[in-house]
Protein backbone atom coordinates (compact mmCIF):
# COMPACT_ATOMS: atom_id res chain seq x y z
CA UNK A 1 0.00 0.00 0.00
CA UNK A 2 1.30 3.45 -0.88
CA UNK A 3 2.44 5.57 2.05
CA UNK A 4 1.08 9.02 2.64
CA UNK A 5 1.92 11.98 4.82
CA UNK A 6 -1.17 13.39 6.46
CA UNK A 7 -1.19 17.16 6.95
CA UNK A 8 -4.04 18.96 8.66
CA UNK A 9 -4.91 22.60 8.12
CA UNK A 10 -3.55 22.39 4.60
CA UNK A 11 -5.76 25.01 2.99
CA UNK A 12 -3.60 27.98 3.92
CA UNK A 13 -0.74 29.36 5.96
CA UNK A 14 1.81 26.96 7.36
CA UNK A 15 -0.26 23.88 6.47
CA UNK A 16 -0.30 24.94 2.84
CA UNK A 17 3.43 25.64 2.90
CA UNK A 18 4.08 22.21 4.41
CA UNK A 19 1.90 20.54 1.80
CA UNK A 20 3.73 22.32 -1.00
CA UNK A 21 7.11 21.51 0.54
CA UNK A 22 6.53 17.78 0.89
CA UNK A 23 5.12 17.57 -2.62
CA UNK A 24 8.37 19.00 -3.91
CA UNK A 25 10.09 16.10 -2.12
CA UNK A 26 7.94 13.76 -4.21
CA UNK A 27 6.06 12.51 -1.15
CA UNK A 28 2.43 11.53 -1.39
CA UNK A 29 0.45 13.94 0.75
CA UNK A 30 -3.08 13.67 2.08
CA UNK A 31 -4.23 17.15 2.96
CA UNK A 32 -7.01 17.48 5.49
CA UNK A 33 -8.82 20.73 5.12
CA UNK A 34 -12.13 22.22 6.14
CA UNK A 35 -12.51 23.93 2.79
CA UNK A 36 -10.91 23.58 -0.60
CA UNK A 37 -8.89 26.76 -1.01
CA UNK A 38 -7.92 27.89 -4.52
CA UNK A 39 -4.26 27.35 -3.57
CA UNK A 40 -4.80 23.71 -2.56
CA UNK A 41 -6.99 23.12 -5.57
CA UNK A 42 -4.25 24.44 -7.82
CA UNK A 43 -1.62 22.33 -6.05
CA UNK A 44 -3.78 19.27 -6.51
CA UNK A 45 -4.15 19.92 -10.23
CA UNK A 46 -0.41 20.10 -10.71
CA UNK A 47 0.54 17.32 -8.30
CA UNK A 48 0.27 14.43 -10.77
CA UNK A 49 -1.78 12.44 -8.30
CA UNK A 50 0.59 13.02 -5.40
CA UNK A 51 -1.88 15.16 -3.46
CA UNK A 52 -5.15 13.87 -2.12
CA UNK A 53 -7.42 16.42 -0.50
CA UNK A 54 -9.91 15.28 2.11
CA UNK A 55 -12.45 17.83 3.22
CA UNK A 56 -12.96 17.47 6.94
CA UNK A 57 -13.99 19.96 9.57
CA UNK A 58 -11.85 19.01 12.57
CA UNK A 59 -14.36 20.62 14.90
CA UNK A 60 -16.53 17.59 14.09
CA UNK A 61 -14.55 15.40 16.43
CA UNK A 62 -16.86 12.40 16.09
CA UNK A 63 -16.11 12.19 12.36
CA UNK A 64 -12.33 12.00 12.66
CA UNK A 65 -11.94 8.24 13.34
CA UNK A 66 -14.01 7.38 10.29
CA UNK A 67 -12.11 9.92 8.21
CA UNK A 68 -8.80 8.23 9.10
CA UNK A 69 -10.34 4.79 8.51
CA UNK A 70 -11.34 5.83 5.00
CA UNK A 71 -7.90 7.28 4.22
CA UNK A 72 -6.24 4.11 5.54
CA UNK A 73 -8.28 1.97 3.16
CA UNK A 74 -6.23 3.51 0.34
CA UNK A 75 -2.98 4.65 1.96
CA UNK A 76 -0.77 3.85 4.91
CA UNK A 77 -0.29 7.01 6.95
CA UNK A 78 3.43 6.85 7.65
CA UNK A 79 3.56 10.36 9.04
CA UNK A 80 1.22 12.98 10.45
CA UNK A 81 1.65 16.71 10.82
CA UNK A 82 -1.01 18.29 13.01
CA UNK A 83 -1.05 21.84 11.77
CA UNK A 84 -4.71 22.88 11.80
CA UNK A 85 -5.43 25.64 14.26
CA UNK A 86 -8.01 28.24 15.06
CA UNK A 87 -7.42 31.35 17.09
CA UNK A 88 -10.03 33.28 18.97
CA UNK A 89 -8.09 36.31 20.01
CA UNK A 90 -9.32 38.29 22.98
CA UNK A 91 -8.89 38.79 26.67
CA UNK A 92 -9.80 35.64 28.53
CA UNK A 93 -12.52 37.30 30.61
CA UNK A 94 -14.34 38.19 27.40
CA UNK A 95 -14.19 34.78 25.78
CA UNK A 96 -17.40 32.87 25.39
CA UNK A 97 -17.86 29.31 26.60
CA UNK A 98 -18.63 28.34 23.01
CA UNK A 99 -15.44 29.98 21.80
CA UNK A 100 -13.38 28.24 24.48
CA UNK A 101 -14.84 24.87 23.51
CA UNK A 102 -14.24 25.49 19.80
CA UNK A 103 -10.63 26.57 20.39
CA UNK A 104 -9.90 23.53 22.54
CA UNK A 105 -11.64 21.22 20.06
CA UNK A 106 -9.60 22.17 17.01
CA UNK A 107 -6.29 22.92 18.73
CA UNK A 108 -6.14 20.08 21.23
CA UNK A 109 -8.95 17.55 21.04
CA UNK A 110 -8.83 17.03 17.26
CA UNK A 111 -5.04 16.59 17.10
CA UNK A 112 -5.29 14.18 20.04
CA UNK A 113 -7.83 12.04 18.18
CA UNK A 114 -5.78 12.25 15.00
CA UNK A 115 -2.64 11.18 16.86
CA UNK A 116 -4.57 8.30 18.40
CA UNK A 117 -6.11 7.05 15.17
CA UNK A 118 -2.90 7.35 13.17
CA UNK A 119 -0.71 5.98 15.98
CA UNK A 120 -2.89 2.85 16.19
CA UNK A 121 -1.95 1.99 12.61
CA UNK A 122 1.68 2.98 13.15
CA UNK A 123 1.75 0.70 16.19
CA UNK A 124 0.84 -2.28 14.00
CA UNK A 125 3.35 -1.27 11.33
CA UNK A 126 6.10 -0.53 13.87
CA UNK A 127 6.98 2.71 12.17
CA UNK A 128 5.82 6.29 12.09
CA UNK A 129 6.58 9.96 12.58
CA UNK A 130 4.28 12.54 14.11
CA UNK A 131 4.93 16.26 14.27
CA UNK A 132 2.56 18.50 16.18
CA UNK A 133 2.68 22.18 15.38
CA UNK A 134 2.56 24.08 18.63
CA UNK A 135 3.19 27.74 19.22
CA UNK A 136 5.22 30.19 21.21
CA UNK A 137 2.05 30.71 23.21
CA UNK A 138 2.22 27.10 24.41
CA UNK A 139 5.03 28.00 26.77
CA UNK A 140 4.94 31.79 27.01
CA UNK A 141 2.06 33.95 28.19
CA UNK A 142 0.71 35.87 25.22
CA UNK A 143 -2.02 38.37 25.90
CA UNK A 144 -5.28 37.40 24.26
CA UNK A 145 -4.22 33.81 23.61
CA UNK A 146 -5.14 32.19 26.93
CA UNK A 147 -7.16 29.26 25.67
CA UNK A 148 -5.16 28.89 22.46
CA UNK A 149 -1.99 28.82 24.57
CA UNK A 150 -3.53 26.33 26.98
CA UNK A 151 -4.45 24.08 24.06
CA UNK A 152 -0.92 24.30 22.65
CA UNK A 153 0.60 23.59 26.08
CA UNK A 154 -1.64 20.54 26.23
CA UNK A 155 -0.52 19.49 22.76
CA UNK A 156 3.12 19.78 23.82
CA UNK A 157 2.54 17.57 26.85
CA UNK A 158 0.64 15.07 24.71
CA UNK A 159 3.64 15.04 22.37
CA UNK A 160 5.96 14.06 25.22
CA UNK A 161 3.67 11.34 26.57
CA UNK A 162 3.03 9.87 23.11
CA UNK A 163 6.75 9.87 22.42
CA UNK A 164 7.33 8.01 25.67
CA UNK A 165 4.65 5.44 24.95
CA UNK A 166 5.40 4.84 21.26
CA UNK A 167 9.19 4.95 21.05
CA UNK A 168 9.51 1.17 21.55
CA UNK A 169 7.65 0.73 18.26
CA UNK A 170 9.88 3.03 16.22
CA UNK A 171 7.42 5.92 16.31
CA UNK A 172 8.84 9.37 16.97
CA UNK A 173 6.62 12.21 18.13
CA UNK A 174 7.88 15.76 18.24
CA UNK A 175 6.50 19.27 18.23
CA UNK A 176 7.59 22.44 16.52
CA UNK A 177 6.76 25.65 18.34
CA UNK A 178 7.04 28.53 15.90
CA UNK A 179 6.99 32.10 17.04
CA UNK A 180 5.51 34.76 14.84
CA UNK A 181 5.28 33.60 11.24
CA UNK A 182 4.38 35.30 8.01
CA UNK A 183 1.02 33.58 7.61
CA UNK A 184 -2.66 34.45 7.43
CA UNK A 185 -2.91 34.04 11.18
CA UNK A 186 -0.42 36.85 11.77
CA UNK A 187 -1.74 39.07 9.02
CA UNK A 188 -3.74 41.02 11.58
CA UNK A 189 -0.57 42.41 13.14
CA UNK A 190 -0.04 46.11 12.62
CA UNK A 191 3.22 47.45 11.21
CA UNK A 192 4.13 48.76 14.65
CA UNK A 193 3.55 45.32 16.17
CA UNK A 194 5.68 43.74 13.45
CA UNK A 195 8.56 46.12 14.13
CA UNK A 196 8.31 45.42 17.86
CA UNK A 197 8.46 41.68 17.23
CA UNK A 198 11.47 42.06 14.96
CA UNK A 199 13.19 44.23 17.56
CA UNK A 200 12.63 41.57 20.21
CA UNK A 201 13.76 38.71 18.00
CA UNK A 202 17.51 37.99 18.04
CA UNK A 203 17.49 37.16 14.31
CA UNK A 204 15.88 40.56 13.69
CA UNK A 205 13.20 39.18 11.41
CA UNK A 206 10.00 37.20 11.37
CA UNK A 207 10.54 33.49 10.66
CA UNK A 208 9.51 32.31 7.21
CA UNK A 209 7.21 29.33 6.83
CA UNK A 210 9.83 27.69 4.61
CA UNK A 211 12.11 27.48 7.63
CA UNK A 212 9.46 25.55 9.56
CA UNK A 213 9.10 23.25 6.54
CA UNK A 214 12.83 22.50 6.65
CA UNK A 215 12.60 21.43 10.28
CA UNK A 216 9.43 19.40 9.65
CA UNK A 217 11.20 17.64 6.78
CA UNK A 218 14.09 16.80 9.08
CA UNK A 219 11.79 15.40 11.75
CA UNK A 220 9.67 13.40 9.30
CA UNK A 221 12.30 12.22 6.84
CA UNK A 222 15.78 12.35 8.31
CA UNK A 223 15.77 12.48 12.09
CA UNK A 224 16.75 9.37 14.02
CA UNK A 225 14.32 7.88 16.52
CA UNK A 226 16.48 9.23 19.32
CA UNK A 227 14.98 12.64 18.61
CA UNK A 228 11.56 12.15 20.12
CA UNK A 229 9.36 13.89 22.66
CA UNK A 230 10.97 17.22 21.90
CA UNK A 231 9.32 20.59 21.56
CA UNK A 232 11.57 22.53 19.25
CA UNK A 233 11.19 26.28 19.42
CA UNK A 234 11.75 27.81 16.03
CA UNK A 235 11.19 31.46 16.63
CA UNK A 236 14.43 33.20 15.77
CA UNK A 237 15.34 33.15 19.44
CA UNK A 238 12.27 35.15 20.49
CA UNK A 239 11.58 32.83 23.42
CA UNK A 240 15.12 32.95 24.82
Amino acid at each position, binding site marked *: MEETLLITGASRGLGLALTRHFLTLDRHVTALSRTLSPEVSSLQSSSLGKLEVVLQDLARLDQIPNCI*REIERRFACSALINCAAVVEDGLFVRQSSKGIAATLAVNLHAPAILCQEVA*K*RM*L*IRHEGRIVNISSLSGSRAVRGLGIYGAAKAGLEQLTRVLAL*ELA*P*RNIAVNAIAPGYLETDMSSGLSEIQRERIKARTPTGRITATTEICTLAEFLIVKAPLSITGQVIHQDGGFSL
Partner: protein
Amino acid sequence: MSEAETCATSSNPRPVYWDLVEKGIARLLRQKDLPPALLTPETVFVSLKLDSLDVAEMLVDFELSLEIEIGAEDMAGVTKLSDLAGLIQRLDTSANV
Protein backbone atom coordinates in the same frame (compact mmCIF):
# COMPACT_ATOMS: atom_id res chain seq x y z
CA MET B 1 -22.44 -24.85 10.23
CA SER B 2 -20.02 -27.20 11.93
CA GLU B 3 -20.55 -28.73 15.33
CA ALA B 4 -17.76 -26.63 16.72
CA GLU B 5 -19.52 -23.46 15.58
CA THR B 6 -22.95 -24.41 16.95
CA CYS B 7 -21.48 -25.32 20.31
CA ALA B 8 -19.41 -22.16 20.63
CA THR B 9 -19.40 -20.41 24.02
CA SER B 10 -17.23 -17.64 25.38
CA SER B 11 -14.89 -20.17 26.97
CA ASN B 12 -15.06 -22.34 23.89
CA PRO B 13 -15.03 -19.83 21.06
CA ARG B 14 -15.61 -20.66 17.44
CA PRO B 15 -12.45 -21.91 15.75
CA VAL B 16 -12.37 -18.86 13.52
CA TYR B 17 -11.95 -16.56 16.53
CA TRP B 18 -9.34 -18.81 18.08
CA ASP B 19 -7.48 -18.72 14.76
CA LEU B 20 -7.54 -14.92 14.88
CA VAL B 21 -6.21 -14.80 18.42
CA GLU B 22 -3.64 -17.45 17.63
CA LYS B 23 -2.37 -15.39 14.70
CA GLY B 24 -2.20 -12.19 16.75
CA ILE B 25 -0.50 -13.81 19.72
CA ALA B 26 1.92 -15.73 17.50
CA ARG B 27 3.13 -12.43 16.12
CA LEU B 28 3.72 -11.10 19.62
CA LEU B 29 5.51 -14.28 20.69
CA ARG B 30 7.86 -13.94 17.72
CA GLN B 31 8.52 -10.31 18.61
CA LYS B 32 9.34 -11.26 22.17
CA ASP B 33 11.27 -14.42 21.30
CA LEU B 34 8.89 -16.57 23.32
CA PRO B 35 8.34 -20.26 22.48
CA PRO B 36 5.34 -21.04 20.20
CA ALA B 37 4.40 -23.80 22.65
CA LEU B 38 2.86 -21.07 24.82
CA LEU B 39 0.14 -20.66 22.25
CA THR B 40 -2.73 -22.70 23.67
CA PRO B 41 -6.30 -21.72 24.59
CA GLU B 42 -5.54 -22.43 28.24
CA THR B 43 -2.47 -20.21 28.39
CA VAL B 44 -2.96 -17.37 30.83
CA PHE B 45 -1.95 -13.91 29.66
CA VAL B 46 0.22 -13.26 32.70
CA SER B 47 2.52 -16.11 31.69
CA LEU B 48 3.30 -14.35 28.40
CA LYS B 49 4.79 -11.41 30.30
CA LEU B 50 3.34 -8.95 27.81
CA ASP B 51 3.80 -5.29 28.63
CA SER B 52 1.04 -2.74 28.22
CA LEU B 53 2.24 -1.75 24.74
CA ASP B 54 2.22 -5.38 23.59
CA VAL B 55 -1.36 -5.72 24.81
CA ALA B 56 -2.34 -2.42 23.18
CA GLU B 57 -0.80 -3.51 19.88
CA MET B 58 -2.62 -6.83 20.01
CA LEU B 59 -5.98 -5.26 20.82
CA VAL B 60 -5.60 -2.52 18.21
CA ASP B 61 -4.78 -5.19 15.64
CA PHE B 62 -8.06 -6.98 16.41
CA GLU B 63 -10.00 -3.72 16.52
CA LEU B 64 -8.75 -2.55 13.14
CA SER B 65 -9.10 -5.85 11.35
CA LEU B 66 -12.62 -6.57 12.65
CA GLU B 67 -13.77 -2.93 13.09
CA ILE B 68 -14.74 -3.53 16.69
CA GLU B 69 -13.95 -1.64 19.88
CA ILE B 70 -12.48 -3.46 22.84
CA GLY B 71 -12.94 -1.38 25.99
CA ALA B 72 -10.89 -1.71 29.15
CA GLU B 73 -14.00 -2.99 30.92
CA ASP B 74 -14.36 -5.73 28.31
CA MET B 75 -10.91 -7.02 29.21
CA ALA B 76 -11.70 -7.28 32.91
CA GLY B 77 -12.60 -10.97 32.81
CA VAL B 78 -10.00 -12.00 30.28
CA THR B 79 -7.31 -14.20 31.80
CA LYS B 80 -6.77 -16.99 29.27
CA LEU B 81 -6.23 -16.75 25.53
CA SER B 82 -9.54 -18.57 24.95
CA ASP B 83 -11.28 -15.82 26.98
CA LEU B 84 -9.98 -13.27 24.51
CA ALA B 85 -11.24 -15.29 21.56
CA GLY B 86 -14.63 -15.51 23.27
CA LEU B 87 -14.67 -11.79 23.91
CA ILE B 88 -13.85 -10.97 20.30
CA GLN B 89 -16.56 -13.32 19.15
CA ARG B 90 -19.11 -11.48 21.31
CA LEU B 91 -17.96 -8.07 20.11
CA ASP B 92 -17.88 -8.99 16.44
CA THR B 93 -21.59 -8.43 16.10
CA SER B 94 -21.50 -8.22 12.34
CA ALA B 95 -20.39 -11.83 12.18
CA ASN B 96 -22.93 -12.92 14.79
CA VAL B 97 -25.97 -11.53 13.02
